């Protein structure tokens, strides 16, 4: 029971129709409950025309479960999943802008790149832009490393995540298009084993 009320990072993956305003419908499910969205990404999915939202929140399992049910209730939402960090493979991308003068004088740029798995995506006379991808801690590390040398700009993207156990949405979508789809599509495939991964 304790694990259900303890807050931890959850990644919510939502497959949706491509519909104006749906982002808002999903966002208000969080804001109504005063839950902060840690990161949010919308992108195409493995299927043409189906959108995929990736939303990260720091919440208890109980709360996340209720939110996911509310999300799935939205007419244009096909399916929503939620996963803990060990159930997904995820990446975030970060960009760092530093002044060329500063960085080339004081740091061995090659070493920086190698050590932090970074790439230089723009090299100009006045500034350089580095890029890394990885988990939060990894992208933070380079930020910390660059701070002493005058980090001019820093930005990190939302999380994108792949669910380890997922076999994709192609088969499910076919099922959704049927009038009499399988049970799995309609309801919680894990209803019988409550503590397993929840979907509806």
């Amino acid at each position, binding site marked *: 029971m304790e694990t259900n009320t303890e807050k931890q990072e959850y990644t919510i993956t939502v497959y949706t*129709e491509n519909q104006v305003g749906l982002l808002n419908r999903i966002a208000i499910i969080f804001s109504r409950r005063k839950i902060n969205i840690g990161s949010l990404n919308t992108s195409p999915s493995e299927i043409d025309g189906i959108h995929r939202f990736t939303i990260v929140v720091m919440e208890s399992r109980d709360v996340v479960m209720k939110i996911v049910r509310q999300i799935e209730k939205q*007419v244009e939402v096909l399916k929503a999943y939620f996963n803990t960090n060990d159930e997904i493979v995820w990446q975030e991308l970060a960009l760092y802008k530093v002044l060329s003068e500063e960085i080339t004088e004081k740091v061995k740029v090659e070493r920086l790149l190698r050590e932090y798995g970074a790439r230089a995506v723009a090299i100009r006379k006045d500034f350089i832009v580095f890029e890394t991808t990885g988990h939060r801690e990894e992208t933070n590390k380079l930020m910390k490393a660059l701070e002493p040398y005058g980090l001019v700009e820093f930005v990190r993207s939302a999380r994108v995540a792949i669910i380890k156990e997922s076999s994709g949405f192609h088969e499910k979508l076919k099922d959704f298009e049927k009038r009499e789809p399988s049970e799995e599509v309609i309801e919680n495939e894990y209803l019988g084993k409550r503590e397993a991964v929840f979907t509806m």
Partner: protein
Amino acid sequence: MAIKKLTGAQAVLEACIAEGAETIFGYPGGAIMPIYDALYDYNDKLKHILVRHEQGGIHAGQGYARTSGKVGVVFATSGPGATNLVTGLADAMIDSTPLVCITGQVFAHLLGTDAFQETDIINITMPVTKWNYQVTDATEIPGILAKAFYLARSGRPGPVIIDITKNAQIQSFDYEGYTPCNHIRSYRPKPVIRKNFIDEAVALINNAKKPLVIFGQGVILGKAEKEFKKFIEKSGMPAAWTILGLSALATDHPQNVGMLGMHGNYGPNVLTNECDVLIAVGMRFDDRVTGRLDKYAKQAKVIHLDIDPSEIDKNVKAHVGVWGDCKETLPLLTLGIQEKDRSEWLKVFADYTQQEYDQCIKEELNPSTEEMTMGEVIRIVNETTKGNAVVVTDVGQHQMVACRYAKFNETRSNVTSGGLGTMGFALPAAIGAKFGALDRTVIAVIGDGGIQMTIQELGTIMQTGVDVKIMILNNQFLGMVRQWQQLFNDKRYSFVDIQSPDYVMVAKAYGIEGAKVEHRKDLVKAIETMLAHKGSYLLEVMVGKENNVFPMVPQGCSVSEIRLK
């Protein structure tokens, strides 16, 4: 069939006809003028009721939907017309009432320019609609309206708003006829029923010594009243209702043990915390029903039947969640459960009923004081109508009293604003309720606060000649708030002392007959006169100023801590 040209506006009306929405409640305005212009030629096929305020229009739509079981249709213009719908949408959303609201919108090329009467109604109504959509091209209209009606009525019903820009209403297009919608790939109105959960529920019920069934509007929305009756009768279980479930089971059914919640009956509240299996059917464990959650039915195994999966485990954890339409799940349960004699368990309820009768009900229904009580008014209504009327209530003390004491033989007879608690609901809702059930007597029971919130709808009654009996129970206070101030704020009566106009004169000004009763000796006759009157009638009854509704579960208390005084 030759393809004909229709305007978007005409296509909207064709959709209403095809969906059987013959009565529309609405109010015209600039951005919806093309639809109203088209309506001019549809007078023989569609009945449009001109209300006095868009809020009145949507509450009328709700009343219509609640008594008829059909989708209520409401028209309003852009801007203020649309924003005036918001309260009704929120009310319909929380009470699962099927509505399709059509709002006009400024020309598409003006969207986002702060044009005259432009409001972003799609975003404003997002949290209070099951679905909403803005149409900017007429060709979308048949498909979108089909979707709107389907979504409003299917699964767990709810309000839908379709915002149509003026250019789309005017635009002519090749109309290929209307095809109703019955499938949207991303939308599952009903979860599939799983046998293992039915079996688990059946086993729990069969092993139960003290099962208690609690039911809500799901039984009515699912049109499952018969299935529900069979279910409880087979196993002899007591059944208690939420105020939206009221009338799904006849009041005098021997297993009907009364009302749940804050002002519900003594037995079902106390025994919720003593039953061993709690079977919730089509209800959502509202906080006014459960009281303090951490002390709610902790001893019981909970079986929860609901069509909306997000309701299961939302407030009360279910040991068995039976997802599905109760019209389908109840017969499956009935099949498995054993016939049982539970008269001893029912006797426990009867004992509580007796205690409640002695300590509260008796005095409320047959008061020994000079002052009249709301309860005795409802008792006389019961005696006069024999429980066959539709009773529409507003919000507050009179609502609780009416729900507690009104007798019902038929389903869809109780119309009230439950979840949202919208004062001003009753008068317009009663108008709609009557249009939804033309052969029935409709009585609106309203307090002196609520009536003044939507009193302008007397104009709608005047103009349409609809027959609604309006009963104002006037205690010269905003009574429910006053009751709380008395009990919890040391009688600091802060702004609850509300004055009333002369209602009989107001009614008269609208051409509606009326009377005022100040003494008990005139009450029976007055109610009989009202009910016998052909056409609408307003009856104002002066009731005791400081009567309280009891029993009561004080906020923050457990249902078993219900107070009888």
